């Protein structure tokens, strides 16, 4: 067998085998993975919209959001996946809103790459819990180094104003976009 | 007056006041004269006498071997006592002819040219210079006849007589210019003639106004010009001097003749004059004895071969504990380990310092202050070179131009870490030479 033919045969064969094996593994694992992902999504949605029992994916223009319903089937809130830039990189959030978008029912930081121990503390419950029942009208605000006074205010993580401000900005921007299409 | 100068350099304390006003005295003849057979750059001489021979003042006792070599002569009449290895200012034991003077004063000079000077042709002048064993008296002791016969491809158009004497403490050249201006100028003319050069410059540092005046006066009617340079070390180094006076750069690894210049010390000019006019070989020279550890600093006309210990006695001996004995100036001179070494042709000064005059601290790592960089007249990076040498990267040292260093010592003078930069550089040069020699084999 000439070397060239051998080369062609071997590499093509190996590539094919690899494709074949992987597609098999994929077929086995993909249901599990999808279930995993879905589970995560569900968890975060139910977290930010208390009382929700089921949800429905909706799309308006290019905005995806989830309409949440309780057992009775009435809409208890809206879960909005949003993202934007933080101090270091992208921050992804799930924001829970009342159906009229006037108040936040909760937020969950899904992904972030801020400095651990600093901007990273936006993932801590202490920070996230502040957003419960915060008014979005006219806009969410942050204060530094002091307790919030108004019901639109949250307190920024000390030493990580930029990250905190980013979270607030991302939320405000996306609520506005959503309310403009709803 | 315009002061000629160069970039960078340093200003060490000059300390010339110790010796500059002391007229040249004749030194006495010692009991023993030691004439090493190597007193110049190049091949050593071959002894021309045997033990027991009687010699006369001015008699050749060591023959030149090869072109780059210079004969040596007996400075006194006397008897050859021994021919054996003896201490030498270069730090090794070197074969020397040891003569016991007999005080007869018998002379065996060469034929004096006297009145014939003006008609003399360059070739016979050159042979006089050769036979007189003249070497550069500025320190390097390069055989003068070699310097004065440049190869055909290198036309010379300027002769610089170097009277800068930028080394601190020393005043031999200064006194020479004050006391023998005419002989000196005559010598310069002769060298000019040998070289076929019209353009002759005498360069003097501005801290010798009296010498400038004297020379200016003496040269008033000739073609020789006197140029005054700023008082800055190392103004007298030939490459630097040529740049300052003529704005020509001697190429790296090259010689002044590559830019059409010959540089000679004032003492060399005087020696040429005496050799050609009077037939006197190079058997004595002016030496400054100075330093705080010497009782009476002064300038002496010394027979070559006189052991330093005798000279010190004439200068009243030492005071206090001498800490360092240096042949030459404090910036470039060589430290000696004993007072038994003889004065040789290249000895311009004997400097004996007390402990408090020099500082010998332990050296520290380089802090990259760049003082050395700002002082190197050659624009090297002495700090980097010293680090390279410390790390023993000899090849790298060559790339950083170690061979261009003139070892002037400016860098080590200013270094706040007291790094022995020059020693590092010398070590690197030596190592590179060794490596080159080995590669050739």
């Amino acid at each position, binding site marked *: 067998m000439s070397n060239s033919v051998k080369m062609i045969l071997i590499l093509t064969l190996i590539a094919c085998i690899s494709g074949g094996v992987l597609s098999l593994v994929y077929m086995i694992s993909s249901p599990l993975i999808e279930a995993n992902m879905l589970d995560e999504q569900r968890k975060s949605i139910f977290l930010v919209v208390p009382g929700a029992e089921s949800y429905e994916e909706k799309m308006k223009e290019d905005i995806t959001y989830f309409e949440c319903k309780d057992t009775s089937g009435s809409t208890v809130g809206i879960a909005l996946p949003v993202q934007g830039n933080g101090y270091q990189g992208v921050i992804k959030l799930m924001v829970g809103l009342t159906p009229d978008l006037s108040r936040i029912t909760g937020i969950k930081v899904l992904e972030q790459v801020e400095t651990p121990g600093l901007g990273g503390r936006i993932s801590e419950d202490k920070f996230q819990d502040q957003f419960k029942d915060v008014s979005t009208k006219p806009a969410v605000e942050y204060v530094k180094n002091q307790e919030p006074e108004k019901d639109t205010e949250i307190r920024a993580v000390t030493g990580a104003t930029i990250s905190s401000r980013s979270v607030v900005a991302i939320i405000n921007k996306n609520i506005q976009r959503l309310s403009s299409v709803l | 007056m315009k002061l000629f100068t160069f970039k960078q350099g340093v200003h060490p304390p000059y300390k010339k006041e110790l010796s500059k006003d002391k007229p040249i005295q004749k030194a006495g003849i010692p009991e023993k004269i030691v004439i090493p057979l190597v007193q110049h750059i190049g091949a050593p001489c071959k002894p021309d006498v045997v033990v027991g021979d009687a010699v006369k003042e001015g008699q050749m006792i060591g023959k030149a071997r090869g072109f780059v070599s210079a004969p040596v002569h007996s400075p006194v009449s006397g008897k050859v006592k021994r021919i054996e290895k003896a201490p030498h200012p270069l730090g090794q034991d070197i074969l020397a002819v040891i003569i016991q003077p007999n005080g007869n004063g018998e002379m065996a000079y060469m034929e004096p040219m006297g009145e014939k000077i003006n008609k003399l042709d360059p070739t016979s002048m050159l042979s006089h210079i050769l036979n007189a064993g003249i070497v550069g008296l500025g320190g390097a002791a390069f055989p003068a006849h070699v310097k004065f016969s440049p190869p055909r491809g290198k036309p010379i158009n300027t002769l610089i007589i170097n009277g800068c004497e930028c080394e601190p403490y020393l005043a031999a050249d200064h006194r020479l210019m004050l006391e023998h201006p005419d002989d000196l100028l005559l010598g310069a003319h002769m060298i000019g003639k040998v070289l076929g050069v019209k353009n002759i410059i005498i360069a003097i540092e501005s801290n010798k106004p009296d010498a400038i005046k004297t020379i200016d006066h003496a040269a008033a009617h000739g073609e020789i010009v006197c140029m005054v340079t700023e008082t800055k070390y190392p103004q007298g180094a030939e490459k630097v001097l040529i740049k300052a006076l003529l704005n020509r750069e001697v190429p790296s690894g*090259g010689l002044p003749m590559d830019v059409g210049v010959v540089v000679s010390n004032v003492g060399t000019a005087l020696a040429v004059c005496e050799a050609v006019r009077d037939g006197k070989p190079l058997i004595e020279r002016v030496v400054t004895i100075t330093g705080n550890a010497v009782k009476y600093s002064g300038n002496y006309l010394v027979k070559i071969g006189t052991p330093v210990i005798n000279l010190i006695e004439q200068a009243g001996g030492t005071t206090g504990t001498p800490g360092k004995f240096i042949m030459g100036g404090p910036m470039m001179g060589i430290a000696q380990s004993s007072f038994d070494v003889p004065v040789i042709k290249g000895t311009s000064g004997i400097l004996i310092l007390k402990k408090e005059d020099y500082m010998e601290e332990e050296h520290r790592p380089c802090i990259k202050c760049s003082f050395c960089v700002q002082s190197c007249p050659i624009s090297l990076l002495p700090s980097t070179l010293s680090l390279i040498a410390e790390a023993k990267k000899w090849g790298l040292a060559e790339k950083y131009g170690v061979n261009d260093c003139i070892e002037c010592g400016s860098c080590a003078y200013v270094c706040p870490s007291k790094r022995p930069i020059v020693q590092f550089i010398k070590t690197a040069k030596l190592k590179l030479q060794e490596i080159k020699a080995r590669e050739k084999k």
Partner: protein
Amino acid sequence: MFIKGISGEEGEVVAVHGNKAAVKIKANKSCKKCHLCKRISSTEMIVDAFTERPVSKGERVVIAVRPGTIVKSAVILYILPLIGLIIGYYFGKFISAFFHIRVKGELFPACIALIFLFLSFIPIHIYDRKKQNDSRFRVFITDNIPKNISNPD
């Protein structure tokens, strides 16, 4: 980047014209890789070197390649094609807009970009050839070697 040419070569000046000099050098190991010079035989070659100092025929000199060559070659070899790539992309975009080529997404400009990238090796190839013949490629006389005596200092 600005070191003195590492591979200083010793050679003899055979001709001088203006600020250029032809220098004959021995071919050695370090020259094997380099094709900057015209070889006159297997053991000797002639290099045209720039000089900033007067040299005369018969003089022995040291020549070296002007520093920065390596870096410059790296730019030519690696950066030029990338510029080609980007130009190709915008060119492709322009073409597709101009001729209303309807290909989904950026496939068309991307392909043009890749084609441009490979095309940009043509000038490099030419440059390479030229450099092999054009021996003036930044060779300089860096030193001359005094024939007779060593430095007295």
